[in-house]
């Protein structure tokens, strides 16, 4: 992923309405613009604009089915972010967290 791509992914995700759109597509994949408007109670213009931003970030993929354009959540860019910043460090992270947990819990047992 190039730097520009990462920027567009984070910018697209920074908006709560766009995250709601992604949630809606996660729950029901392959929705049309009309269905998304109904499910989110938003105007066509607003949804269409947000979908554009999500599409530029490759977070939403579209497929043409006859006259309809269907929208899908595309998790690949988020997976690339995971691979870049999380996967590689996960092991070290977990070891550090475990050590911290042992230290703070000391003699006091309780909430994990």
């Amino acid at each position, binding site marked *: 992923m190039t730097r520009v*791509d990462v920027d567009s992914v984070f910018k697209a995700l920074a908006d709560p309405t766009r995250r709601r759109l992604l949630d809606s597509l996660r729950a029901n994949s392959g929705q049309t613009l009309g269905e998304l408007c109904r499910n989110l109670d938003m105007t066509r213009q607003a949804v269409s604009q947000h979908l554009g931003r999500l599409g530029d970030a490759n977070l939403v*993929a579209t497929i043409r089915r006859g006259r309809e354009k269907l929208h899908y959540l*595309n998790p*690949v860019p988020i*997976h*690339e972010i995971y*691979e870049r910043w999380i996967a590689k460090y996960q092991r070290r992270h977990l070891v550090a967290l475990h050590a911290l947990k042992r230290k703070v819990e000391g003699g006091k047992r309780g909430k994990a």
Partner: protein
Amino acid sequence: MEKPEFVYVTYIASTPEKIWHALIDPETTTKYWQQVNLSDWKPGSKWEHRSGDEKRILRLVGEVIEAKPPRRLVISWAFPADEGDEAKHTRVTFDIEPYRDVVRLTVTHDRLEPDSDMLKGITKGWPMVLSSLKSLLESGKALPKLW
């Protein structure tokens, strides 16, 4: 309601020919997928998905539905135990299209049963496989082992 369907898109700085080769060449798929896809890739032929190690454990089976190298490959996709049960055969489509100066690879997986093991497996699997493929083709390095 239709059966769940998933669409995965990744943009890869490569050529359609290289991406096609990377989907079917056992040596390449072992690097980024740790599995191999074996077939003669002719429509109507069978294909097998096996582990990339020397054990070559059979993981998936299916048929080549459509093959238009290097642009489009459509295959059925099922667990070996479900080979005789067509209702449990899912379908995978690879579309490889030049897009500006890169290539857009779209994987569509449909005919999935809701809540099936196949559905759970592929929703976890495809993002990993595609990220790793992209990494291999762009940097020469696949991501760390997936499974």
